[in-house]
């Protein structure tokens, strides 16, 4: 009943009036009869989702949402609609971060290297992903700045960036500890050395920040501009969050220690052994983005990987997202990873949140995405059935109200299922004989 009233309220408030940036003249679409999974709110068995001008205009039970006269009506009976999936950790697009010159390269931006025509983006849409945090690798202590992208159709990376109010691209800083970043000098050879290098860099960044503050805008007194330290100051000032690769329990604790010492914000990524230190993570109030794998091992720091991590973190009250780490897991099967977490004890609600709203919060984008709420971007996945079933297919994916994947489209289906030519743009990328094959670009 409360649910119904809530929905009626929304319908009255928003269904027939412009919502936020949407104008009454913008095209309006009504998905009618679907099971709606809003995330963060109870599921609606038979609901109507109204979108106008790329924004969600109403969400509620069928009998509680009135459909405007100008709306295009889509019969979604028997289908399931949930928010576009948010992947907090992806390597799609062939992006590169820092090179072999040193272990700390926060000035390097992955956005300067991403191929938006990479077939990987098409496969993401086939999996229902609409927002990604694209990261450089974990072979450095700090391998570069990450970028948050919205999977609109794109000709260049600029078309898919999330930007702040000042127009600057949004992203975090990728950091890593453990074995991946241990190499010959100038890279660290031990865990102690790794932490010492990071600590030294942050101490320098603090001094730089203080000089900037002292100069008070006086160009005579300003220190020479240092892009590395500038990026670290962004981290110290919490304008950029640290996305930190860590597997082993002691590596997780090291991140928490450095974070405490320097006061930055962090999300712990992968966290194979978080199940051993969940209370400590909970006390620190730090969120985790978990990888869900088919088995432990493959490298020493993932030896104690367990499927129960999501469940243990949930029980400890730790905010928990799930990520693909594509290519480690397949973006087309992102829903599957949440289902495996449920198999190992995570609740259905938290697992679905881990694919959407929890990730959106970790990227600071939860005002715009991550749930079916009025005023949020109309980023949607239309499913053939329950999101946790093996047999369920992503039928359509929408970004800001635009259909960007349709399983009925033979080309889209090829990317969803695979087959001859399903990796075609990677082929074009690795060759040098002219334009990409027909159909690979849009």
């Amino acid at each position, binding site marked *: 009943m409360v649910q119904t009233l809530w929905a009626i309220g929304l319908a009255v408030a928003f269904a027939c009036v412009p919502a936020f940036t949407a104008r009454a003249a913008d095209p309006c679409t009504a998905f009618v009869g679907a099971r709606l999974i809003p995330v963060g709110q109870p599921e609606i068995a038979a609901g109507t989702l109204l979108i106008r001008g790329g924004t969600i205009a109403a969400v509620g039970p069928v009998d509680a949402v009135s459909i405007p006269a100008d709306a295009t009506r889509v019969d979604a009976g028997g289908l399931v609609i949930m928010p576009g999936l948010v992947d907090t950790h992806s390597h799609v697009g062939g992006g590169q971060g820092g090179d072999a010159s040193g272990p700390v390269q926060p000035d390097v931006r992955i956005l300067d290297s991403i191929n938006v025509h990479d077939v990987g983006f098409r496969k993401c849409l086939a999996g229902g992903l609409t927002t990604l945090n694209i990261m450089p690798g974990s072979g450095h202590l700090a391998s570069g700045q990450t970028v948050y992208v919205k999977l609109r159709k794109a000709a260049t990376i600029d078309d898919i960036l999330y930007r702040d109010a000042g127009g600057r691209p949004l992203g975090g800083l990728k950091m890593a500890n453990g074995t991946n970043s241990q190499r010959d000098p100038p890279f660290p050879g031990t865990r102690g050395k790794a932490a010492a290098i990071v600590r030294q860099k942050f101490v320098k960044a603090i001094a730089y920040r203080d000089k900037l503050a002292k100069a008070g805008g006086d160009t005579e007194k300003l220190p020479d501009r240092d892009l590395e330290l500038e990026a670290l100051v962004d981290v110290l000032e919490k304008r950029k969050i640290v996305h930190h690769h860590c597997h082993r329990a002691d590596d997780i604790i090291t991140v928490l220690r450095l974070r405490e010492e320097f006061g930055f914000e962090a999300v712990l990524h992968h966290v194979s052994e978080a199940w051993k230190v969940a209370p400590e993570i909970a006390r620190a109030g730090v969120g985790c983005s978990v990888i869900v794998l088919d088995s432990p*091992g493959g490298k020493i720091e993932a030896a104690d990987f367990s499927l129960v991590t999501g469940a243990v973190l949930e029980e400890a009250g730790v905010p928990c997202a799930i990520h693909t780490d594509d290519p480690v897991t397949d973006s087309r099967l992102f829903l599957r990873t949440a289902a495996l977490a449920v198999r190992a004890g995570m609740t259905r609600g938290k697992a679905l949140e881990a694919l959407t709203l929890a990730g959106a919060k970790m990227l600071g984008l939860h005002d715009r995405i991550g749930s079916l709420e009025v005023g949020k971007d109309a980023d949607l996945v239309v499913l053939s059935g329950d999101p946790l079933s093996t047999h369920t297919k992503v039928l359509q994916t929408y970004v800001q109200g635009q259909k960007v994947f349709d399983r009925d489209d033979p080309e889209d289906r090829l990317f969803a299922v695979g*087959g001859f030519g399903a990796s075609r743009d990677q082929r074009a990328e690795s060759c040098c004989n002219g334009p990409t094959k027909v159909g690979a670009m849009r």
Partner: protein
Amino acid sequence: MSSGRREIHLGHLAAAAGGVCLAWASLCHGGETLVVRGDVVHTMAGPAIAAGVVVIEGGKIRAVGAAATTPIPPHARELRGAIVTPGLVDAHSVVGLSGYLNQPQDQDQLDPVEAIQPELRAIDAYNPQERLIEWLRGFGVTTIHTGHAPGALVAGQTMVVKLAGTTADAAVLRPVAMVAATLGDSARATGDGADTKSPGTRSKAVAMLRAEFVKAREYARKRQLADESKRPDPDLRLEALGNVLARDWPLLVTADRATDIASALRIADEFQLRVVLDSAAEAYLLADQIKAAGVPVIVHPTMRRAGGGGETENLSFETAATLAKAGIPIALQSGYESYVPKTRVVLFEAGLAAAHGLSFPQALAAITIDAAKIIGVADRVGSLEVGKDADIAIFDGDPFEYTTHCTGVVIDGQVMSTEPR
């Protein structure tokens, strides 16, 4: 995880049913008796049985049928679940040779020194204590075909083991299953630092393989010469290839590109070998030829990644279904993973195949009876039939659903685990 343990002891029935022991004389004297009940029992040797039961004694299946009509021995330990299947059979893995740490000291699946080494035996490298064995078993896998990995022209032998036992000898079901060969990029030496022993091109690879089989044929002929002094000294490498030429051991050819699959069929025809195709990403392009050659296919893991273009760029979730539809015998596998995760789980791969065109019975057969047939152990495992090994998997729902748990695993009548996984 709320389903808990589903194990029931029928001790309280003992007194009432004590007399039945006479009727079950053989059971009462032949070792531990176990009763497994399922809301549905998929025997893979006939229609599924509703409210079915499997009776086990001495490590073998003694009875299978509807619970209402099958005599149930008293005093037996009892397991039950929604779905009961044969223990799952993974038609191709490297677990036990390629360890979970992925460090040099636990990687014995491939010796890079020479291109052709069919004399390498899997049993000499198999580690039954490997942690991934317990991992796979927890999901209902009880038998694997494992051994030398793809990545050399002829990498070595493979074997079939049960996922039980503390020594390789105790685990082994078939000490030599096949000889593993690879046609394709992973078996080619490329780049500046390429070693000269491996073939540099596809043509060279096939030429080397043909040369070695010709040599083995000559060797086999000369070993039979009447004049003992003219017989060549024993050569384990040529002996091994001789077993392939004699069709005692199939040649397992890992090949993804249609070109390489065609080469495998050509070699099979030329030397009249028993070939089993492995991985076969582009097999759907040659379904007619594969069918005509009568060659079975152990299809790549359904969820295998199409990494970086090259041989696997045309992978499809639907390949298993396409081949099955063409009438080609297929099985599914966990395959070989070089990084994270260190192994796949064949149950999950079958689930995805079932979601992409294989029927439920086809997908289950691809990881039970059909897999057992292709790897040559169907007389022992792969179906629930009287006289076969008592290898059983128990599930609390549709085994192919992501959120279903495997709640019991039995190997040779021994309960290996009952913790829901």
